[in-house]
């Protein structure tokens, strides 16, 4: 229960709740304490038409809360173009604010610009102040022309063109990050040894060591699932022992590194984008440049190095975990004892199988790190843009990781590795 005088206010909730409309209706008729009488009540519009002369009597409350009720009728009056003389009697208006004044002045301006004589009577002092105050805005609104909308074909082509240019920019910027990373952190002083070991070690701790538990758990489960499914199918052929070959080759060549890369893209890629992006939002990246440091060298380099060291290590961990999970399931489900599993594994795989997987790990690390950094550097000024780029970072990184894994498979097949 909220304490007296305090309340929870989440402004962004305002953007999405639908409760507002319901509350609005009750506001008009309830009595407002502290506000002079006459504030509430309907705005009224009485129209008398005699030939080409129109006379209107406006009464009631004409304010922000009530004008919606007469807006349509006022617009209809504006559109009448057979008139010579318009008379507006404002004496019955009990309350007027800028919104009410806007409706009245809009009508006046529409007729005056057509050369119709408009006569105002019974303005209150408030009206005398408010009407001229909104006049300027009315004139500008009349002059402003709506922007022409393009056709569907042009819009589609425009979107494709923009996507192409964006893809090109991504590739160019990726090359820039790679180059600047090799170039190092310092920009102006010409010092060559600018590697900060502390930053790299702390990043390895966060992105590598921190990811060990989840990667072990995930890999063990995936290894176990593959072993169970494989054993189940191979049982029909009486070849259950071959589940060891299946699991060994699949995990060491493909799955260990792929699962690790996907997990790192989700875990560390998003963090890199968010970190660099929020630094970009608060001009910290600009501050680095002004101090004479290369933002890519300072921010991206340690993370990239940490990933290049961390992902291969995590891949080894993932391989062991997955094989461990598979071994357990092979023992419990198929009755293959661990000694037999290891014996069989020694026969079925060799060093090249292990390296076929491990060689991919640094490339995956590079892809995740570079895509995350590019997206981080592209963050603009708003919270929404940060969210968009974090999403884009993870989605693009996972997509490219899988595509590159496919390219490696084709390459290995071609060279018979």
């Amino acid at each position: 229960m909220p304490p007296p005088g305090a309340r929870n206010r989440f402004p962004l909730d305002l953007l999405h709740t639908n409760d507002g409309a319901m509350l609005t209706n009750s506001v008009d008729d309830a009595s407002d304490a502290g506000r002079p009488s006459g504030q509430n009540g309907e705005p009224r519009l009485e129209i008398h038409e005699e030939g080409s002369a129109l006379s209107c009597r406006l009464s009631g409350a004409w304010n922000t809360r009530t004008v919606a009720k007469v807006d349509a009728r006022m617009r209809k009056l504006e559109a009448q173009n057979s008139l010579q003389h318009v008379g507006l009697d404002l004496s019955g208006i009990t309350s007027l604010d800028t919104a009410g004044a806007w409706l009245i002045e809009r009508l006046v301006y529409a007729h005056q610009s057509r050369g119709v004589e408009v006569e105002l009577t019974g303005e209150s002092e408030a009206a005398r102040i408010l009407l001229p105050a909104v006049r300027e805005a009315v004139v500008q609104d009349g002059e402003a022309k709506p922007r022409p909308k393009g056709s569907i074909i042009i819009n589609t082509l425009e979107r494709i063109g923009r996507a192409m240019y964006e893809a090109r920019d991504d590739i160019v910027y990726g090359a820039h990050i790679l180059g600047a990373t090799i170039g190092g952190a310092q920009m102006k002083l010409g010092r060559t040894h600018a590697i900060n070991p502390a930053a790299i070690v702390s990043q390895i701790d966060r992105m590598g060591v921190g990811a060990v538990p989840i990667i072990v758990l995930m890999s063990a489960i995936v290894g176990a699932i593959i072993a169970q499914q494989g054993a189940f199918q191979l049982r029909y052929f009486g070849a259950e022992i071959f589940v060891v070959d299946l699991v060994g080759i699949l995990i060491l060549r493909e799955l260990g590194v792929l699962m690790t890369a996907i997990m790192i893209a989700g875990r560390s890629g998003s963090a890199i984008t968010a970190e660099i992006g929020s630094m970009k939002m608060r001009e910290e990246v600009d501050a680095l440049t002004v101090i004479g440091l290369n933002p890519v060298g300072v921010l991206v380099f340690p993370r990239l190095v940490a990933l290049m060291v961390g992902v291969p290590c995590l891949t080894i961990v993932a391989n062991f975990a997955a094989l461990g999970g598979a071994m357990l399931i092979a023992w419990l489900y198929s009755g293959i004892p661990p000694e037999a599993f290891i014996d069989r594994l020694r026969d079925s795989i060799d060093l090249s199988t292990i390296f076929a997987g491990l060689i991919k790990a640094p490339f995956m690390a590079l892809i995740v790190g570079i895509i995350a950094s590019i997206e981080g550097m592209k963050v603009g000024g708003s919270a929404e843009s940060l969210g968009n780029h974090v999403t884009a970072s993870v989605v693009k990184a996972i997509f490219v990781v899988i595509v590159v894994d496919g390219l490696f498979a084709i390459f290995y097949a071609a060279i018979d590795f």
Partner: protein
Amino acid sequence: MVLIDEQRETQTGETRDVVLSVRDVTVGFGDTVVLDGLSLDVYRGEILGFVGASGSGKSVLLRTILGLIRKRSGMIRLLGQDLDKANDEQRLKVDMRQGVLFQHGALFSALTVLENIQVPMREYLDLPRALMDELAYLKLELVGLPRTAAPKFPSELSGGMIKRAALARALALDPDIVFLDEPTSGLDPIGAAEFDELVGKLRDTMGLTVYMVTHDLDSLLTACDRIAVLGGKRVLVDGTVDDMLACDDPWVKAYFRGKRARQIDRSARG
């Protein structure tokens, strides 16, 4: 906001309409008491300048009035409504009649300027789309922003434009009272003077009551009708610039008669 003839008369008359009344309010965090038995009145149609040393609790008082910080004791009546006794619906009615300009604008960064202004309208009023656009443009015009600023995002605006856009959002529902938290901080003297002029003009056209927390001596001198000084956990003194100069409190003396205030001193005497 409302502008009615009878109200204009009371403003010049003896009995003044109290819009905001703060009585014996105490606010504290943990062991520290920030405000202790503070009382303050704000009258309809005036511009009240609120000053005090950094850390004296100006923002705490503002946030307490707005209901963002809970108070330990005391009473706050805003627009005739005791905020402690208000139920949600009454509270909402008060919300609809107040506008707030936060120190850094607090514009929603994901929305354009025009959409920012329309947020309160969209929530509270049932306006047709076209009219809502027109009224938002009208508010832009009133705060002196060009129409070209409407489709821009807050990150694309200069500091002065952000303040104006935030003021336009505060005015979206034509409030009775607006709270301005350091509206001229971070603006150049010319921009600040323009902003002061704008606040005065809006007060005159829309009949606003303005509660302004500020450190800007020029604003206090040119824009404000009345000045209240916060010190020692309560309002030390309130009144016109002359009252401030006559005050014996060392902080008030230092503030209004210090080096940076010499010109005010001179012009007030001259």
